[in-house]
């Protein structure tokens, strides 16, 4: 494979990012001596326009046939330099990146050792590129339909944007209605818009949109395929009620003898086993919760079916597995509150008048259990002293989550303000560590809470909460005055941390996308590719990717949707050609490679008695190559010869 080569090596200083710890001149000098290298030079910023020009001109002047750029990680500038190489008339796959920044200059301090390592890395890549073959991207068709997972505000926004762009969307939501957490909120900061009033029009639009196929009470079970051509299996749980026949009369719920905590009101009220989550639920239909129904097989109660006049209830409704083909996926699975069991120190779950932020939203909400009247759960009296505690489970790396949940400072200010609007003669206290009010109109909003509504902010943490004489006693400290504080409160509201929604970790495994240390889905680049996952064709929106408020969620959802639309605007996708191939002369037809392939890209050719590769299906992992006993299977530009020659040069002069 390695004919006489004319390789050019371009060593980047990256200012002092590389040159500070790696002697770049020496790297160039050493590389110049390497076999087949006709030019080795350095430049302060190879990615700059003059840097790229240097590469292009050198290719022409020195008649180079291959290029190594020793610089940052290939995830950053591989495409830049491959494009430049291509502009000079070379095949882009004749350009390779030697990562001497992230994997060398930034992780080592001793200059001589870092330089020696950078030389090894660069030489190993020279050995590789000298054995590269020119490749052309493989074209694959795109299925122009999208799957959106999660029916909260982010999923709704992404689905509407894609659908309005003219493409079909399947919106999958695991609960009986779309709306997510936003539909539970009473008002939103900083404008105090009614949350339901601004969300329900979008929910209705989803339900009526000709391009949106809504699948509630459904979960994604399995995904195969690749960008542009995913195959999805969706499990639709039975609701036991035909939504087309259901007239929403509510007779079934009336007669149902079972009462369980209502999830929508976070347990502040009860619901029946056959229920509608909330009046504006979409789809507008009842759901029979089989986990709480006394029994369907055999029928233990049967009261609901007896009263259902339109005969919408069907106890024999089976779960369905629905298979769909989509080209792109938006993951918008949102959040759940940090588990209350983990905040036992604040009496949460033990003291009835200690609530979490979402429960307080329900208390404030006009559609809530008290119809918007603020009444404490224990005795239904109006609380006159309310303590709000921020950072419950956030910013506490020893015991809870290290991260900031981002929305709590603002919603606590909103809670305190709305409480004062409901109970003008009441007093609101807020315990805080810092006030984080970055955002348009946010700082002014917090100021309004303190100045107009007289909310008392106390900088410090709460040490203990306990019940005494019908009061909730809060012990804390005000670190600004240095005084211990005791408040005999009627109600305590905990600004609980938000965490990735239940099941996000399992979904990540189904989708094969990565999650970060806190369980949020990882974006492809924290700064520059915030709506893409590491898997091409899968995009992220909303809190599933990290804590954020509604406007940011909507922006990210629209961002993800625009990525999908951009993808759908072309008819074909190009597929990385670093795929497996078979030397038919060497293949003995043993078929060992066939079960190694997760994509069924390897097929046995009965005529030739050899295995062939479907390069459109091949994703280029190389598992089959390592399994091939005869060396017939090779991965393009990752051949055994290339890997071994890299090993050789790294260990040069050792044994």
């Amino acid at each position, binding site marked *: 494979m390695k004919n006489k080569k004319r390789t050019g090596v371009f060593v980047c200083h990256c200012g002092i990012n590389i040159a500070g710890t790696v002697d770049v001149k020496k790297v160039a000098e050493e590389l110049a001596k390497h076999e087949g290298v006709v030019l080795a030079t350095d430049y302060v910023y190879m990615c700059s326009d003059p840097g790229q020009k240097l590469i292009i001109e050198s290719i022409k002047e020195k008649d180079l046939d291959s290029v190594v750029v020793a610089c940052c*990680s*290939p*995830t950053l500038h591989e495409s830049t330099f491959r494009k430049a190489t291509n502009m000079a008339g070379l095949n882009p796959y004749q350009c390779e990146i030697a*990562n001497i*920044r*992230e*994997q*060398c200059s*930034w*992780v*080592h*301090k*001793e200059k001589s*050792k*870092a330089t*020696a*390592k950078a030389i*090894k*890395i660069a030489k*190993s890549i020279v050995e590789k590129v000298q054995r590269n073959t020119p490749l052309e991207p493989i074209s694959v068709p795109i299925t122009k339909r999208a799957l959106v997972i999660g029916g909260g505000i982010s999923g709704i926004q992404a689905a509407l944007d894609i659908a309005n762009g003219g493409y079909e969307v399947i919106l999958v939501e695991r609960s009986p209605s779309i709306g997510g957490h936003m539909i539970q909120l009473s008002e939103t900061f900083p404008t105090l818009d009614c949350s339901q009033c601004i969300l329900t029009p979008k929910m209705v639009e989803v339900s009526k949109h000709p391009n949106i196929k809504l699948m509630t009470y459904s979960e994604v079970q399995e995904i195969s395929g690749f960008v542009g051509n995913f195959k999805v299996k969706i499990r639709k749980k039975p609701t036991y009620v035909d939504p087309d026949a259901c007239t929403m009369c509510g007779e079934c719920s009336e007669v149902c003898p079972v009462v369980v905590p209502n999830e929508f009101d976070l347990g502040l009220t009860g619901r029946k086993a056959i229920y509608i989550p909330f009046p504006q639920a979409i789809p507008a239909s009842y759901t029979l919760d089989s986990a709480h129904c006394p029994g369907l097989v055999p029928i233990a109660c049967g009261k609901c079916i007896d009263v259902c006049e339109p005969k919408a209830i069907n106890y024999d409704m089976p779960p369905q597995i629905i298979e769909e083909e989509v080209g792109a996926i938006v993951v918008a699975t949102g959040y759940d509150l940090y588990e209350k069991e983990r905040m036992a120190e604040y009496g949460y779950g033990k003291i009835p008048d200690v609530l979490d932020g979402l429960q307080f939203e329900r208390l404030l909400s006009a559609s809530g259990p008290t119809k918007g009247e603020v009444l404490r759960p224990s005795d239904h009296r109006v609380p006159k002293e309310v303590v709000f505690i921020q950072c419950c489970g956030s910013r506490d790396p020893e015991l809870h989550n290290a991260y900031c949940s981002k929305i709590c400072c603002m919603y606590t200010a909103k809670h305190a303000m709305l409480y004062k609007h409901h109970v003008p003669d009441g007093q609101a206290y807020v315990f805080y560590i810092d006030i984080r009010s970055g955002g348009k109109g946010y700082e002014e909003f917090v100021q309004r809470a303190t100045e107009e509504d007289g909310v008392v902010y106390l900088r410090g943490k709460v040490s203990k909460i306990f019940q005494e004489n019908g009061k909730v006693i809060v012990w804390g400290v005000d670190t600004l005055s240095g005084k211990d504080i005791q408040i005999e409160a009627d109600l305590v509201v905990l600004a609980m941390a938000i965490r990735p929604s239940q099941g996000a970790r399992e979904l*990540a*495994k189904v989708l*094969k996308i*990565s*999650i*970060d*240390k806190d369980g949020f889905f*990882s974006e492809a680049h924290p700064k520059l590719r915030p709506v893409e996952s*590491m*898997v091409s064709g899968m995009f992220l929106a909303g809190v599933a990717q990290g804590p954020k408020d509604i406007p940011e969620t909507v922006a990210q959802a629209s961002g993800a949707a625009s990525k999908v639309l951009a993808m759908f605007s072309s008819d074909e996708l190009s597929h990385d050609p*670093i795929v497996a191939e078979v030397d038919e002369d060497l293949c003995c037809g043993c078929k060992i490679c066939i079960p*190694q392939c*997760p994509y069924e890209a390897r097929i046995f050719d009965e005529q030739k008695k050899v295995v062939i590769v479907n390069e459109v299906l091949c*994703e*280029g*992992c*190389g*598992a089959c*190559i*390592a*399994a091939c006993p005869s060396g017939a299977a090779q*991965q393009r530009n*990752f051949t*055994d010869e290339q*890997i*071994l020659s*890299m*090993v*050789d040069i*790294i*260990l040069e002069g*050792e*044994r």
Partner: protein
Amino acid sequence: MAEFEPKIICFACNWCTSAGADLAGTSRMEYQPNGVIIRVMCSSRVDPQHVLWAFKKGADGVFIGGCHPGDCHYQDGNYKTLRRIKLLKKLLGDLGINPDRLRLEWVSAAEGKKFVNVMNEFTDYIRKLGRLELSENGGPPSGE
């Protein structure tokens, strides 16, 4: 005589371990420079023969890094790697090479810190084991 510096070949998968190594760099974490990374698309691309070749050519240690079980970019490549490496470790003993000179670890793209710890710990371990001495005919050397 200068202190023995182990030579370590690191095979790192593109999606997790190489990205984790990149994160270690972006976060400016420091680790010992003995390991040199060869980036492959998936840890399952690593042929046991590559490992043997590396030992033959003078590596004192070989590291393979892949995605955590269940997180493989290619569905289940890392399970294939696990099976192959377990078997290879059995063979290494017969070849007179301490199987612990070959290390397989799961390092995700978010685990820059883990990559650093593994690199330092493995380098120290190999330094303690000393140079890998192989006899001319490839038979069991002394001491291992």
